[in-house]
């Protein structure tokens, strides 16, 4: 079965502190993983994908196949990073995104 687990519903950090949003997955094949973000009153949008190995807005995510994880990290959180973050897996046999439950990130000043 394809499943994405985000264990934290809410992560609260101070501005300037490091951030790590956890994501674990279960998938039998070679996974394609994404992070999506939804800022307040905005639509869901792609933040980054593992195949691009990119850094967006200071965020990075490394696929660890041994630990089946794709944690999202940023060394220094900013207030504008406050949002809902979803980890997602592109599922085979349905051409669909399988989402985790999401983590609310609150960056306090």
């Amino acid at each position, binding site marked *: 079965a394809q499943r994405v687990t985000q264990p934290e519903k809410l992560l609260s950090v101070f501005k300037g502190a490091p951030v790590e949003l956890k994501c674990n997955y279960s998938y039998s094949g070679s996974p*394609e993983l994404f992070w999506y973000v939804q800022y307040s009153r905005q*639509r*869901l*949008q*792609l933040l980054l994908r593992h*195949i691009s190995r990119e850094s967006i807005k200071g965020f990075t995510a490394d696929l660890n196949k041994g630990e089946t994880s794709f944690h999202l990290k940023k060394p220094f959180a900013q207030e504008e990073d406050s949002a809902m973050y*979803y980890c997602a897996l*592109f*599922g085979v*046999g*349905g*051409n*669909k*995104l*399988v*989402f*985790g*439950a*999401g983590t609310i990130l609150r960056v306090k000043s």
Partner: protein
Amino acid sequence: GAGVSQSPSNKVTEKGKDVELRCDPISGHTALYWYRQSLGQGLEFLIYFQGNSAPDKSGLPSDRFSAERTGGSVSTLTIQRTQQEDSAVYLCASSLALAVSDTQYFGPGTRLTVL
């Protein structure tokens, strides 16, 4: 250019009534997806279209749900005999094609409330 649009933005209906939700994808996008975002279930996939065809309807929650797409563009999600558990935000997304490398762009959603 314009992004994915959805209408209505909000819909309040009474239990037992039928509702239609509309999605206008980005022009030229051949793939279209419907998702549902609810408090208890998070974001769940409902159905996808390649052109006007929906090869797999197994993600639809019940036979009260149906979807169609015409002209390779606009899609309509119809819920018949609505129930309170249908209350959710219904999201539409489109992508250039079905490849995993094709980013899915999401609409603002339709918030459905069933009284």
